[in-house]
C-alpha cells in the first residue's frame, strides 16, 4: 500500500490469532521448574492492632516451604511503596509498607504470606497462620474523617487530611451575587472496582549468584514497575527485568506498585525458587485499587437566558487507607476539569482529601475526569430543568467556541484544540433529537408506568500524558514521554519496540499501521513488541489515554527517520535525488516512473550488509525516537442516550446510545469504536449498577462478582458511534486518544436520561447507582437516597452541616438488577 493508506484503515488485529485459539500467554499460564505458590494472609479488620502472629502450625504443614510475616519483610524492604504523583507539595502521606507490622488499616491489608509447593494447599496454609487483633475504632467516609474529633487512620500524621487544594479564576463572588438563577446539588460519585477480567498476577524468579530478578507481571507499567521494585528491594535497576506478557485488561488497576509487587519477588529471593502469585477475584475486589469515591457540592450561577456566570464546587475525596501511586492527583484533576466545555466569568473549586479505613483508591478508567464531567453535566441539567430550557440549547449557548482558541480554561488548562458545536450537531442529527424529544414527551404525557427519558452529556478530557515540564509542574515524578524503536532486518522485515504496554487496546496493530504508513508497506509486514524491559529501550506504560499520542508518535518519528535513511540509499542506487523518489508498494521508485525502482527488501539488505551504501553512511537500519509533547491533548464529544424507566419496579432499561467522539485523527476506526463501546459500558454501569459498598465497620460487602454488579450482555444495547475530527496540534499524527472517552461521557448521560424520564414526577436527582430500589423510592416518596423535590442540600457555604457519610453508599446492600446466575 502507498504511504497514507494505513492511517484510518480498519485492518484486523494482529494480536487476535493467538487469543482466539487459546494460545495467549497470560501470567497464570507461565510454569517454571520448581515453582512455588504464594498465598497472602490478610486482615479481617478495617482497623486493629496486631497483638500476636503465630506461624508455627503453618510452618509444620507438609506443603509449606516458607512463611513471611510483616516484621520479617519490613527488615528487608528498603523503601515504602512508591507515590509517584506528589501533589500538592505539602501532601501528607503515611509510609505504606508491603505488609502491616503493628496496625492494620483496611480489610484485606497483608499481614503475612505463605509459600507452598501445591496450589491447593494455599488456603490450608493461610488458615494455619494465627493472628490476634485488638480492634480499633473505624472511620469510613471523607466528611466523617475530616470532622472534629474523628478517629485517626494514621495517628502519626496527626490528622486524616491528606491535603486541601483550591483553584479559582475570575470574580466568583460577583458571579453568584444577585445571580438570577442559582442551582446547587450534592453529587455522590460512588466507589467502583475496575474489574479487569484477568486479576493481577506475578511470577518471580531470582538468580541469587547473579542478583538477577525476573518478574512476569500483569501490569500496565512494566518499566515503572522495574524501576520501583528495584529501588524498594535494593537491587540495581539493570539486574531487574519485568515482562508484561498478555495482560487481560487493566483499566488503571494495574498502573501501580502494590504490596504483592514486593512480597512476591521477596519470596523468590528468600526461597531461591521461582514463585507464582495469582490474585483471586475476592482478593481483587478487596485488595487491588478502587476508583472514584468523591462527593461534590456543586453550584452554578446563571442568567435567565442560560448564560453561565459562575461555577463553584467543594469536593470531598476519600483516598482510603493509604496514598497510592497516582492517587493524590486524581481529586486535583476532578477539580481542574470541572469547567468542562464551558465558558464562565467566575470559577472556584476547593478540594478536601481524607484518609479512611477502606482500601486505597487510585486510577480507574478516566481517573478524575469522570467525576468532574458528572458534576458539571448533572448540574447543568438541573439548571436546564429550572430554566425550562432544552439541555442541548443550554450547552450550545455556553460552549467554548472554535474562535476562542488558543484557549485557557477557567482552571488554567490550555486546551490543545476543540470545536464543540459540530460535534453536538452531529450527535443531535444521529439521534434525530427534535423528533425524539416530541416522541418521548408525547409518550410521557399519557402518564404511563414505563416512562421514557433522553439524556446527554458533553465532555472534554485531559489526555496524552504527557509533557515532561507540565507534568513535573503538577508534581508527577516519573517520566511520561513516548518511546519507540524501529528496526529493519537484513531480510527486510520490520520490528517496532514501543514503550506503551497494551492491555487490550490493540497497539500491536495500530503501531504496525503507523510504521507501515511511513515505510510504504502493508501493516502485516510490521511486527510490534511491547512490555519487556530487556528488549524495549524505555517506556512508561498504558494509561490516561496516552499511548497513541505519545508512544504512537514515537513510532511515527522513528519510522520516518528510517524512511529518510532508506530514501538516501535508494537515491544512491537509482542515481536520483531523494526528493524525486516516492515510497509505496514495498519499493522506492522515481516519481512518475514506477519501473525505475529499488525494492524495500533490497535497501534493507544493503543497509544491513554495508554493501552499496552512499559514501560515509553508517550501516544498519535502526532508529529510536523519544517524544515529549508540548502539551496534553483534550479529546471531547457528545453522548446522547434514551432510557425506559419502569416506575412500578424502578428498573431502568437503556434503549439507545449514541456516542460522537472527537479524538483527532484516527489510526484504526474499528479499534476506536471498540474503545468507545467498552468505555460506554463501564460508565453506564456506574450510573445504573456498580458500587463498592463497605458497612460502618469497614467490612467490604461487595466482595465477589455475585455482589458487585458488572453488566451482562443483556443489560446493554448496540452503541451508535460517530466522529468529528479536530486535529491536535501537539503531535505530528494529530491524534488525541480515546481510551477513556466512553467512560467519562456515559455516566452523566444515563443519569440525566433517567431524571428526564422522571421529571414529570417531581424527582430532581437520585445518587448513583440508580438501582431499581432507589428509583422506586424516589418515585414513590420514600428516601431512596434521592433528592425529594423540596429537600434542602448543603452548598459550598454550608458543607458538612447536616450531612454525614451514611448516605455515601446507599441505604442497603445493592440489589442485583437481574444478576442472578
Amino acid at each position, binding site marked *: 500500500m502507498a504511504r*497514507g*493508506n494505513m*492511517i*484510518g*484503515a*480498519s485492518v*484486523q*488485529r494482529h*494480536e*487476535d490469532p493467538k*487469543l*482466539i*485459539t*487459546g494460545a*495467549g*500467554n*497470560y501470567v*497464570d*499460564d507461565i*510454569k517454571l521448574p520448581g515453582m512455588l505458590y504464594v498465598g497472602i494472609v490478610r486482615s479481617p479488620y478495617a482497623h486493629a492492632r496486631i497483638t500476636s502472629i503465630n506461624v508455627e502450625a503453618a510452618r509444620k504443614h507438609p506443603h509449606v516451604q516458607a512463611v513471611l510475616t510483616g516484621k520479617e519483610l519490613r527488615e528487608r524492604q528498603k523503601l515504602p511503596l512508591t507515590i509517584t504523583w506528589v501533589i500538592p507539595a505539602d501532601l501528607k502521606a503515611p509510609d505504606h509498607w508491603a505488609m502491616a507490622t503493628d496496625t492494620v488499616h483496611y480489610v484485606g491489608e497483608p499481614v503475612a504470606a505463605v509459600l507452598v509447593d501445591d*496450589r*491447593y494447599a494455599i488456603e490450608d496454609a493461610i488458615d494455619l497462620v494465627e493472628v490476634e487483633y485488638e480492634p480499633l475504632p473505624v472511620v469510613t467516609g471523607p466528611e466523617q474523617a475530616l470532622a472534629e474529633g474523628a478517629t485517626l487512620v494514621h495517628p502519626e500524621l496527626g490528622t486524616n487530611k491528606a491535603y486541601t487544594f483550591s483553584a479559582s479564576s475570575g470574580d466568583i463572588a460577583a458571579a453568584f451575587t444577585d445571580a438570577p438563577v442559582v442551582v446547587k446539588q450534592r453529587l455522590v460519585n460512588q466507589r467502583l472496582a475496575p*474489574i*479487569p*477480567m*484477568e*486479576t493481577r498476577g506475578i511470577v518471580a524468579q531470582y538468580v541469587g549468584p547473579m542478583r538477577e530478578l525476573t518478574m512476569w507481571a500483569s501490569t500496565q507499567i512494566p518499566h515503572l514497575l522495574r524501576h520501583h521494585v528495584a529501588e524498594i528491594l535494593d537491587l540495581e535497576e539493570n539486574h531487574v527485568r519485568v515482562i508484561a506478557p*498478555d*495482560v*487481560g*485488561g487493566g483499566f488503571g488497576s494495574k498502573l501501580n506498585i502494590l504490596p504483592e509487587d514486593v512480597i512476591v519477588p521477596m519470596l523468590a529471593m528468600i526461597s531461591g525458587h521461582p514463585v507464582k502469585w495469582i490474585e483471586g*477475584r475476592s482478593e481483587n475486589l478487596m485488595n487491588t485499587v478502587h476508583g472514584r469515591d468523591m462527593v461534590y457540592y456543586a453550584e452554578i450561577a446563571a442568567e435567565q437566558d442560560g448564560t453561565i456566570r459562575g461555577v463553584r464546587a467543594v469536593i470531598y475525596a476519600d483516598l482510603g487507607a493509604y496514598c497510592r501511586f497516582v492517587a493524590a492527583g486524581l481529586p486535583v484533576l476532578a477539580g481542574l476539569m470541572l469547567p468542562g466545555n464551558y465558558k464562565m466569568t467566575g470559577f472556584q473549586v476547593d478540594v478536601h482529601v481524607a484518609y479512611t479505613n477502606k482500601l486505597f483508591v487510585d486510577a480507574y478508567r478516566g481517573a478524575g475526569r469522570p467525576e468532574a464531567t458528572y458534576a458539571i453535566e448533572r448540574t447543568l441539567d438541573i439548571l436546564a430543568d429550572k430554566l425550562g430550557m432544552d439541555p442541548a440549547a443550554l450547552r450550545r449557548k455556553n460552549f467554548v467556541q472554535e474562535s476562542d482558541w488558543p484557549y485557557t480554561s477557567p482552571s488554567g488548562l490550555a486546551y490543545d484544540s476543540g470545536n464543540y458545536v459540530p460535534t453536538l450537531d452531529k450527535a443531535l442529527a444521529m439521534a434525530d433529537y427534535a423528533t425524539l424529544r416530541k416522541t418521548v414527551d408525547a409518550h410521557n404525557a399519557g402518564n404511563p408506568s414505563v416512562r421514557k427519558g433522553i439524556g446527554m452529556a458533553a465532555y472534554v478530557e485531559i489526555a496524552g500524558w504527557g509533557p515532561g515540564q507540565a507534568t513535573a509542574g503538577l508534581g508527577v515524578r516519573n517520566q511520561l514521554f513516548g518511546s519507540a524503536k524501529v528496526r529493519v532486518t537484513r531480510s527486510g522485515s520490520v520490528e517496532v519496540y514501543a514503550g506503551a504496554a497494551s492491555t*487490550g487496546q*490493540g497497539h500491536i496493530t495500530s503501531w504496525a499501521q503507523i510504521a507501515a504508513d511511513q515505510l510504504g508497506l502493508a501493516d502485516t509486514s510490521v511486527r510490534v513488541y511491547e512490555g519487556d524491559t530487556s528488549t524495549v529501550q524505555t517506556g512508561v506504560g498504558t494509561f490516561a489515554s496516552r499511548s497513541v499520542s505519545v508512544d504512537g508518535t514515537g513510532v511515527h518519528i522513528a519510522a520516518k527517520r528510517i524512511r529518510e535513511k532508506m530514501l538516501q540509499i535508494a537515491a544512491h542506487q537509482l542515481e536520483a535525488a531523494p526528493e524525486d523518489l516516492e515510497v509505496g508498494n514495498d519499493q522506492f521508485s522515481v516519481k512518475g516512473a514506477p519501473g525505475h525502482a529499488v525494492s524495500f527488501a533490497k535497501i534493507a539488505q544493503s543497509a544491513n550488509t554495508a554493501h552499496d551504501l552512499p559514501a560515509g553512511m553508517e550501516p544498519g537500519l535502526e532508529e529510536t525516537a523519544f517524544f515529549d509533547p508540548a502539551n496534553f491533548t483534550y479529546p471531547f464529544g457528545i453522548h446522547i442516550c434514551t432510557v425506559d424507566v419502569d416506575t412500578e419496579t424502578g428498573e431502568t432499561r437503556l434503549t439507545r446510545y449514541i456516542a460522537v467522539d472527537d479524538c483527532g*485523527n*484516527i489510526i484504526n*476506526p474499528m479499534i476506536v*469504536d*471498540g474503545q468507545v*463501546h*467498552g*468505555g*460506554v*459500558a*463501564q460508565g453506564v454501569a456506574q450510573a445504573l449498577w456498580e458500587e463498592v459498598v463497605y458497612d460502618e465497620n469497614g467490612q467490604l460487602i461487595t466482595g465477589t*462478582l*455475585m455482589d458487585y454488579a458488572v453488566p*451482562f*450482555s*443483556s443489560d*446493554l444495547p*448496540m*452503541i*451508535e*458511534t460517530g*466522529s468529528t475530527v479536530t*486535529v491536535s496540534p501537539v503531535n*505530528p499524527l*494529530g491524534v488525541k486518544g480515546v481510551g477513556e472517552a*466512553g467512560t467519562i461521557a456515559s455516566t452523566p448521560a444515563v443519569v440525566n436520561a433517567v431524571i428526564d424520564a422522571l421529571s414529570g414526577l417531581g424527582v430532581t436527582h437520585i445518587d448513583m447507582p440508580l438501582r431499581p430500589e432507589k428509583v422506586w423510592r424516589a418515585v414513590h416518596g420514600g428516601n431512596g437516597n434521592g433528592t425529594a423535590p423540596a429537600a434542602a442540600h448543603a452548598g459550598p457555604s454550608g458543607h458538612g452541616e447536616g450531612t454525614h457519610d451514611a448516605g455515601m453508599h446507599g441505604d442497603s446492600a445493592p440489589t442485583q438488577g437481574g444478576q442472578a446466575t
Partner: protein
Amino acid sequence: MKQTVHISVNGKAYDSEVEPRLLLVHYLRETLGLTGTHVGCDTSQCGACTVLLDDAAVKSCTVFAVQADGHHISTVEGLAADGPLSAMQQGFTDQHGLQCGYCTPGMIMSATYLLSQNPHPSEDEIRHGLEGNLCRCTGYHNIVKAVQQAAGQAPATANSRLQPGEAAAV
C-alpha cells in the same frame, strides 16, 4: 486419595490420576497444559472457564475433574486444531469481538454452544444466551456482531465512524 479418570479432551483420550478436589479447569490447565481456558472469578460468575462437556457449555471451575470421568470435553484449543478457524473464531476476529482476550475462549465456547442450540438467534437471544460470560472490554457490541456473523447473519451495523481514506491527512 487419588482416583483414575478417563477423559477425552478435544478428541484425544487421557487416563489421569487426580485428587478428588481437583477442578476440571485446573485439570485442563495444570495437568494437560491447555491454558486457553481461563479463570476470572471465584464464584462462577464470569464464564472465562467455559468449556463443552459432551456438547453442553459448563463452567469448568464448578466441575470436578472426577465428574468429567468418561466424558468428552471441548476447549478453545480444539476448535481450529485441524487448521482453519471455526466460524465463531472467524467472527470474533472479523468483528473485533475481543480486546484483551481474557474472556474470549470462554465467550467463544458459550457462543458456540448457543448456536448449536439455536442456529438463528435474534440479537436479544444472543445477548441472553451469553449472560453467563462477562466481558469488561467490548461492551458486548462486537461480540454480538461476531455471533451474528458466525450464524450467517449480516452483523448489525450501528456506527458511522470514518472509513479508510476519510481521515484528515497526516
